[in-house]
C-alpha cells in the first residue's frame, strides 16, 4: 500500500498517541550528546532530506540504515559541518552538540570537526606520510596542540586494534597496509584529536569480512568512551554493533525521511511501520 493509504488507517492513528508517550520515555534514556532537530537539507533547489529528528545518547552506537540514495551520508555530514563545503549546500533546522547549536555564527567549524570526527567509506590514509605521521596528522592539520606524541600514537593505534600489527614499522609508508589495516589506521587518526563523537560512513563496505569483524569489535570497544553514529547497508552489522537504529527512506522525487527509529532490538524485532518491516526483512533495498 502507499504511504498515504497507510497513514489513513486506524492502526496508524492509534500508534501516534502511544508514540508520544513513549517518546517522552525515550528521552530519559541518558544524557544526549548530539541531536538534530528538524534538519532539512538542500543541494541547490533540490530538497534531499526533510525533518530529521534524531537524538544520539552519550556513549552509544546508533546505526543509520536505509536503501542507497536516501540521504544518510548527506545527513551525517551536517553533523560535523562538512556539508557546507559542498557548493550549493543549504540546510534548515539545528544540530545541538552539548546543548549548543553548532551552526551559530560564533562557533568555529574547526572546533566542531575536532569534537565530532569522521571515518569514510574508502580508507583514505595520507599516502605521503608514514603510519606515525598519519596518526598525528590531525594535530598538524587543525593546529591542535598535544604533548607526548609517542603515547598518542600507541594509545590510538591500540584503541583502533592496530597497534600489535604495526608497532615495529611505525615509520613505514601507510600505503603498504591492507585495506582493513588502513581503515583502522584512519580510525586511530580520528581518535588522536580526542573527539567525543565519531561518525562512520559505511566504514566496512570496502573491506573483507575478517577486517569487517575486527572493526566492529573496535566500534563496540570505542563506544564505551565515544558516541558513535554509523551508516551501514549491512543489516546484520547494524544488529551486531548498534544500540539504536534509525531507518531512512526516500520515495521517488521526494526528500528522505526518518521513517522509524528506536532501540535496535525493537526496530528489527518489532517494527511498527510496514516499510521498516519490509526493509529489515530484505524485501527491498
Amino acid at each position: 500500500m502507499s504511504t498515504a493509504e497507510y497513514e489513513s488507517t486506524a492502526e496508524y492513528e492509534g500508534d501516534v498517541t502511544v508514540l508520544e508517550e513513549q517518546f517522552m520515555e525515550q528521552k530519559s534514556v541518558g544524557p544526549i550528546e548530539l541531536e538534530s532537530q528538524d534538519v532539512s537539507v538542500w543541494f541547490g533547489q533540490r530538497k534531499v532530506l526533510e525533518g530529521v529528528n534524531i537524538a544520539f545518547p552519550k556513549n552509544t552506537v546508533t546505526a543509520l540504515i536505509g536503501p542507497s540514495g536516501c540521504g544518510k551520508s548527506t545527513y551525517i555530514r551536517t553533523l560535523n559541518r562538512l556539508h557546507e563545503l559542498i557548493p550549493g549546500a543549504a540546510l534548515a533546522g539545528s544540530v545541538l552538540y552539548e546543548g549548543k547549536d553548532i551552526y551559530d555564527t560564533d562557533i568555529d567549524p574547526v572546533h566542531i570537526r575536532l569534537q565530532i570526527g569522521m571515518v569514510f567509506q574508502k580508507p583514505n590514509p595520507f599516502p605521503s606520510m608514514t603510519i606515525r605521521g598519519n596518526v598525528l596528522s590531525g594535530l598538524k592539520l587543525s593546529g591542535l596542540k598535544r604533548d607526548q606524541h609517542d603515547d598518542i600514537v600507541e594509545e590510538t593505534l591500540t584503541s583502533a586494534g592496530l597497534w600489535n600489527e604495526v608497532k615495529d614499522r611505525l615509520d613505514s609508508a601507510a600505503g603498504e597496509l591492507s585495506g582493513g589495516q588502513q581503515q583502522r589506521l584512519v580510525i586511530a587518526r580520528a581518535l588522536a584529536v580526542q573527539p567525543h563523537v565519531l561518525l562512520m560512513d559505511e566504514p566496512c563496505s570496502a573491506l573483507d569480512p575478517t577486517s569487517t569483524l575486527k572493526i566492529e569489535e573496535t566500534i563496540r570497544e570505542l563506544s564505551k568512551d565515544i558516541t558513535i553514529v554509523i551508516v551501514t547497508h549491512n543489516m546484520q552489522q547494524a544488529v551486531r554493533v548498534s544500540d539504536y537504529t534509525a531507518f531512512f527512506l526516500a520515495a521517488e522525487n521526494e526528500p528522505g525521511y526518518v521513517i522509524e527509529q528506536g532501540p535496535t532490538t525493537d526496530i528489527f524485532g518489532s517494527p511498527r511501520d510496514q516499510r521498516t518491516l519490509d526493509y529489515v526483512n530484505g524485501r527491498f533495498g
Partner: protein
Amino acid sequence: MAAPPTETRRDLDSAATSHRGDRIFNRGITVAAFTALLVLAGIAIFLGIAAVEAITTQGWSFLFTTEWKVDQGDEPVAGIWGMLYGSVLLSVIGLVIAVPVSLLLSVFIVFLAPRRLGRVMTNVIDLMAAIPSIILGLWAFYLLSPPAEQWQFLLNKYLGWIPIFQNDSGNFNGTPFIAGFVLAIMMIPIITSVSREVLGRTPPELINAAEALGCSLWTMLRHVALPYGRGGIVGGIMLGLGRALGETIAIFFVLKLVYDINWYKIIESEGGSVATLIVATFGEVSGPYELNLLLAAGFFLFVGTLAVNVIANLIVQKTGRSER
C-alpha cells in the same frame, strides 16, 4: 605409436603483416617515427663538430674565457663563460619570480576561485603562453623597460647597500633583472599549467579526510595537496626552466650583452645569455671561424636545454605513474 608430427610455429604477428600494403605502411610509419631521433642526432653531430673544432683550436678556454677576440690570426681567444653564467643568472631571476607566482595562481584556480572564474583564468594563462616571443620582446622594450628603469633606480637609491642592488653605471636599462622578469612571464604559463593539473588531481578523498580533521587552507596545502603534487610541480618548473634557457628574442632588446661576467648586480646594465649572443653576433660575423664559435655555443646550449628537458619529463612521468 607414430611420433607426433612436428609443428611449425605460426607467428601471429607476422601473419598479420603479411599483406603487402601493411608492410609498406609499417615501414613508412617506422621511418617517419624515427625522424625525431634523426634530427636530434643530426643536431648533436653537426653542432658537435663545431664544438670539437672550437675546443681543439682554443682548448677549454672556449668555455671559460670572457674575452671575444676573434681576429687575432692564429691565436683567437673567445669564450662564452660570461654568457653561460648569464644564462643561468637570468633563469634564476626568472624562477625566483615565476615559481611563487605560478604556484599561487594554481592554488587560486584550483582551490579558491569559483568555477567560472577558474575557467577564465585558465584561458588567460593559455593565452599568455601563446604570445610569440617577438611580441613580448617588443612590449618589454617599449612598455616594461621605462617603468622598470624607474623602479630599479628607486631600488638602488633606497636599498643600494645590499650588494645585488648595486649599480655603478647609473644606467638601469638592459639589466638582468628586466630580462629575468621577461623570462618569468614566459615561464609562468608553463609552470602554472602543469601545477594546476597536478593539484587538480589531488584525490578528493584525501581532501575530505583533511577537512574532517579540521584543516585550514594552508594546512591542507602543506600536508596534503603540495606533497601529492610535488613531483609534477618540480617537473613543470624544469620545463619552464628549459624554455627560459633557450629564449633569445624576448630578451634581445632588453638585455645589454657584455662579455664580462656580471656576478650579482642584477640591476646593473650588463648581462649575458648564450642564446642572445648567437643571434646578436650572427649578423656581423667576421668569418667562418667566428661562425663556428657560434655553432659551438649552440651545441652547448642544445646539450644544456636537452638535459633539463629530459630530466623534467622523467620526473613528470615517474610521479604520474606512481600515483595510479
